[in-house]
């Protein structure tokens, strides 16, 4: 099972409307993605909380059909 980058991006943006999302396919199999997510809503949050916000946005597929998503969360440069 795999997911398309555009699908993952859409889910993240649904949950974090201001997010800028950059996807990278780690293994070329549509199953091991790396996402860089930049959002103002991360400001003041710990790294774990930031990642949890992205996982919450993705919801049910996360850990299921979407086997692995390496995350890099950032706050917009002021």
């Amino acid at each position: 099972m795999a997911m398309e980058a555009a699908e993952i991006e859409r889910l993240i943006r649904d949950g974090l409307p201001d997010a800028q999302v950059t996807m990278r396919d780690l293994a070329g199999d549509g199953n091991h993605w790396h996402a860089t997510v930049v959002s103002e809503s991360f400001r003041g949050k710990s790294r774990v909380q930031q990642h949890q916000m992205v996982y919450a946005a993705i919801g049910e597929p996360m850990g299921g059909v979407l086997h692995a998503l390496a995350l890099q969360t950032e706050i917009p440069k002021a």
Partner: protein
Amino acid sequence: MSIQDFIDSQVKSNDIVVFMKGTPQFPMCGFSGQVAQIFTLLGADYKGINVLDSDEIRQGIKQYTNWPTIPQIFVKGEFVGGCDILREMYQSGELQTLLEEKGIPVMGRASA
């Protein structure tokens, strides 16, 4: 003992706990393997709990931390995160600082 109590007791009675796929000697997934390697490089002992041995643990840990993937790392009972957070912390030296602050002996320091 409920699964949540079991997890709670494990993370509170060991300095470092890694809920992983496979064992420290034989990680069964790339991400679990990276975590095992980081702690090996640091010479920091940790308790590996193989979630592949029990689906109850595999689902229970995800509820315990509200974190959907494996591996999951705890230091002194505190959830640190998954593989990429641990790798980021290791590369920045933040992980070594955290372990030292918690009184956990650490060997190598990541080169600056």
